[in-house]
């Protein structure tokens, strides 16, 4: 009985701690977004969102991401030089993320204040889908990772950086 109560308290404490950590991280991200968003860029953000909405109507996100990625990579063939392998890897990873960004609709409204409120400006549906994908990555990690394996968190890292393959 006492053990059960202790366990409940401990779970509550963990939940409270988790909420505190998430809140702190969320606030810092919001602040970062606020600081990095130029006050005079609102027109461009609105125009970009309007273009994105119209241009991507009826298109699948993975399809658009693949199209953007392929076009971006075609414009950067020179960096595939093996002598620049490390830099190339960074460039390709960045292009992949840029392609994903291109395939995702910007939320509306996208004023500076709204961006700050939503932290990263991602819709609730996207958050839920990303959370589901992250849970799946965690499960896959637990199933496939041997203790002491060098890349013990590889699948989670991969999922965070993958982005180009949204499952929704």
């Amino acid at each position, binding site marked *: 009985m006492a053990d059960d109560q202790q366990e409940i308290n401990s779970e509550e404490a*963990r939940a409270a*701690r*988790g*909420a505190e*950590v*998430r809140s*702190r*991280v*969320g*606030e*810092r*991200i919001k602040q*970062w977004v606020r600081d*990095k*968003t130029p006050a005079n*860029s609102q027109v*461009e*953000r609105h*125009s*970009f969102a309007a*273009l*994105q909405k*119209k*241009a991507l109507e009826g*298109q699948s996100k993975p399809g*658009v991401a693949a*199209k*953007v990625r392929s*076009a*971006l990579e075609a*414009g*950067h063939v020179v*960096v595939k030089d093996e002598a620049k392998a490390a830099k190339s890897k*960074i*460039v390709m*990873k*960045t*292009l992949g*993320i*840029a392609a994903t*960004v*291109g395939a995702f609709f*910007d939320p509306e409204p996208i004023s500076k204040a709204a961006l700050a409120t939503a*932290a*990263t*400006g*991602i819709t609730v549906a*996207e*958050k839920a889908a*990303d*959370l589901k994908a*992250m849970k799946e990555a*965690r499960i896959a990690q637990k199933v496939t990772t041997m203790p002491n394996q060098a890349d*013990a*968190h590889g699948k*989670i*890292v991969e*999922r*965070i*950086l993958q982005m180009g393959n949204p499952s929704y």
Partner: protein
Amino acid sequence: MEEIVRRLVARIENSNLMDTDKDRLYVEMQHAIRSAVRQALISHVSKDDLKRLVHNRSAMTVDAYVRLICDAVKEEAVIEEMHQSMIDVLTTIEQALTEAGV
């Protein structure tokens, strides 16, 4: 950048946070990265081309949109800026975790 993500994941995984909280933090990280890239991307899109496209609905095609993005990212300096921006936001997250004792 990938190294910072690995470091952050290791810190979070080794903490006593619940799995659900860990996953939420990862999703926040993912969105922060996306936000960093989006900001850099939009700041390099040609304002003239964007204006022209937005004022002509029939020109707002997926191909025009892809071309606009490619033109914005054709300079390697822009990719470096995006990369740096991702590092910046991840470093901010790292600092927040330190402050939170994770």
